[in-house]
C-alpha cells in the first residue's frame, strides 16, 4: 500500500506515491533522481548518505521517506547557488578535502549543518562534528582544513562594517 508524500528537496516540492518502507536515500536517488547522495554502508555507520533535514544532518539510510513528508531536505545538489560553489565546496576544492570523493557529499552536508550554528570552531569541535562520517582515504586532515576554510569564509567579519 502506497501513500502520497511531498518533500521539499533543495527548495522544490517533490510529490510521489511511495511505499512506507522506502528509505529516504532511495527517494532522493531513485524518485527525485538526485544521485549526489551516496549509499555507503547502508547500516547507519558511514555517513555517506548524510543530508540536512530541517537544518539538522541525518543519515538518510536510517529514515523512511514518509517520515520526511512535509519537511525540508537539502542534499549536496542544493549547495550551489547561481553557478557559484558554496564555501564548503570551495573549501574541499581548495584544501584538497577529498581523494576518491565517495564520502564527500555526506561530509559536506554534515559540515554545512554544523557551520550553520557554529562559528570559528576549534579543530576538536570540527572533528567531533564529523565523527559520524567516515573517510577511508584517510583524508581527515584535509577535510578538517576544508571545513576551517569554509568556517572562515562564512563567518568573516563583514567588510567595510561600521
Amino acid at each position, binding site marked *: 500500500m502506497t501513500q502520497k508524500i511531498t518533500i521539499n528537496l533543495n527548495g522544490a516540492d517533490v510529490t510521489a506515491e511511495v511505499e512506507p*518502507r522506502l528509505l529516504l536515500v532511495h527517494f532522493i536517488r531513485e524518485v527525485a533522481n538526485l544521485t549526489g547522495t551516496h549509499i555507503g554502508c547502508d547500516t547507519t555507520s558511514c555517513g555517506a548518505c548524510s543530508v540536512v533535514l530541517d537544518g539538522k544532518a541525518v543519515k538518510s539510510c536510517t529514515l523512511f521517506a514518509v517520515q520526511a513528508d512535509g519537511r525540508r531536505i537539502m542534499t549536496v545538489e542544493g549547495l550551489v547557488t547561481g553557478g557559484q560553489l558554496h564555501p564548503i565546496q570551495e573549501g574541499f576544492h581548495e584544501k584538497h578535502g577529498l581523494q576518491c570523493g565517495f564520502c564527500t557529499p555526506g561530509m559536506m552536508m554534515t559540515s554545512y549543518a554544523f557551520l550553520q550554528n557554529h562559528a570559528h570552531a576549534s579543530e576538536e569541535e570540527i572533528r567531533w562534528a564529523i565523527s559520524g562520517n567516515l573517510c577511508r582515504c584517510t583524508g581527515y586532515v584535509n577535510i578538517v582544513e576544508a571545513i576551517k576554510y569554509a568556517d572562515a569564509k562564512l563567518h568573516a567579519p563583514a567588510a567595510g562594517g561600521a
Partner: protein
Amino acid sequence: MIPAEFQYATPPTIPEAIALLQAHQDAKILSGGQSLIPALKLRLATPPLLVDISRIAGLTTLSEAGGWLHIGALVREADLEESPLVRSRYPLLHDTSHVVADPLVRNLATIAGNLAHADPANDHPATMLAYRAEVVATGPSGARVIAVDSFFTGLFATALAHDEILTEVRVPAPMAGSGGAYLKLERKVGDFATAGVAAQLNLDAAGRVQQIGIGLTNVGPMAIRARRSEDVLRGQSPSDALIAQAAALAQEDCDPTADLRGSADYKRNMVRILTMRALHKALERARA
C-alpha cells in the same frame, strides 16, 4: 537493505496512538528510529504496522519543575547535548548524550527510545539508574510513573505494556553539592560501549557522601546497579581507598560476556577502572 512491508500511521494524539497499539498487537512505536530502522532493514523485526509518534504535539518538553527535570518523549539526544540547562545542572546526562552513537544519529535518536528499547548496550539506562530517575508510561487508563529500578526487566524487556507509550523521563533535580559523570569505553565513535559507568552523588556539609547511584552499561543482560559499591561509599568521606574498594566491588558484581570488544575478564577490569574514574570525576564536579 529493504525492510519487509509494513503499514505506517502518524496519529496526531497520544490516545489515537494508544488505540492503534491496542488494535494491532504486533505494532511497533517509531520515534527517532535509530535502533528500530536498522532492525527493520536487517529484518530482525517485521511489524505489520509502525505507529510514528513523532508528530504528536506536546512531547518536546525539556525543563525543570517541582524538583524534577522533565524530558518529553520526543526530546532528541542532540537537544540534551546542546541544552545549557543540561550542561550546567545535569553533567552526567550531558556526558551521556554526548557519547550516544554519533552526531548524526543523535539528531534523530531520543532518550525515551534509548530507554524503551532496553538494549543493555544503550547508554541511558545506566545513567538513569545512577540518577534514580522515573519514567512516565501513558496507556489506555492514563499515565503511571515507574521508578527506573523496576522499569528494566530483562534483555530488551521493560515494564511497559504493549499499549503503553513512554511519554516522559523524569530526572531528580540536583541537590546541593552534587556531581556526576559518565565514562564510556568505545573502540570508535558510533560503537556500543565495551563498558560504561555512570556515577551520580552528592556531598553533605561535612563532605560525606549522602546520596549515590552507580550504573553499569553493557556488562550484563541489562544495565546493572552497582549496589554494593554504592553502599560502601554512602555516609562516608570518599577516600581513594574507599573508591578503589567500590570499584573492585563493581568489577565483581558485573556480568559481562566475551565478544569482539573483549573478554569477560577484560571488561570486568574496565568496569573497575571506569568506576574509579567516574567516581573521581563526579566528586571533582560535586566539589566545584
